[in-house]
């Protein structure tokens, strides 16, 4: 299991994606799957920075990657405002250009790219997002 704490800043997204890619590569995922895992982790971290830590600087995100059998488990822990991805409304992908919603897309992609996305908010320990993907 690898663990790391990143400052919650958009310019660290590159490193967050690299951290996840390294764990996925070691776990034997294909390059195509690694891209999906990087995208899901990026969307998750971006949402934490944008929503959970809205207006807050000097905040951190704790990220872990753990291979459990054939499944990669990615967790992200933050101490910001509760932001539950499962409560985000699914965007209407059939809407035409003028009605297309800008928000909700990141969460939608996370759910599509990962096998499971779960979220627990605790006033003492903070918010914990867990995403899993099985090696294909």
């Amino acid at each position, binding site marked *: 299991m690898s663990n790391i704490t990143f400052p919650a800043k*958009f*310019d660290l*997204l*590159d490193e967050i*994606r690299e951290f996840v890619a390294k764990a996925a590569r070691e776990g034997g995922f294909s390059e*195509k799957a690694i*891209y999906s895992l*990087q*995208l899901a982790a*990026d*969307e998750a971290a*971006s949402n934490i*920075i*944008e929503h959970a830590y809205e207006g807050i600087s000097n905040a951190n995100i704790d990220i872990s990657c753990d291979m459990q059998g054939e499944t990669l488990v990615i967790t992200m822990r933050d101490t910001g405002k509760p932001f539950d991805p499962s409560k985000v409304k699914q*965007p209407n*992908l*059939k809407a035409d*250009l*003028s009605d*297309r919603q*800008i928000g909700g*897309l*990141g969460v*939608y*992609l996370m759910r*599509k*790219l990962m096998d499971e996305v779960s979220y627990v908010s605790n006033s003492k320990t903070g918010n914990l997002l867990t995403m899993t993907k099985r090696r294909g």
Partner: protein
Amino acid sequence: MEITTQEFKHCDLIKVKGRVDSSTAPDFSKALEKANDNGHYKLAVDMSELEYMSSAGFRALLGSQRNCKRYNRGELVLVSVPERIREALELAGFTELFKTFDDSIAAVGSF
């Protein structure tokens, strides 16, 4: 991320290289807006050397497409979309909002 804009007679060819995420998407948006500010609404976005794009980049494309298509004054088209990025755009339901071309000559020639 690196952006270069080439102005042709009938359209602007905007090449975006590297990675577009929440950190770099604002600059990508600015480059698209700048073309619009110059009165150019026919844009071809060359993605041949784009390595990565998150939903932040998709939103920039969507915003620009709305602006370009307003009053039927133009359109934003995509060129040489790498496979992984195309798959993500498909997942997001974005492929039907943008015409795509295999190379920039075809894209520029379409305007």
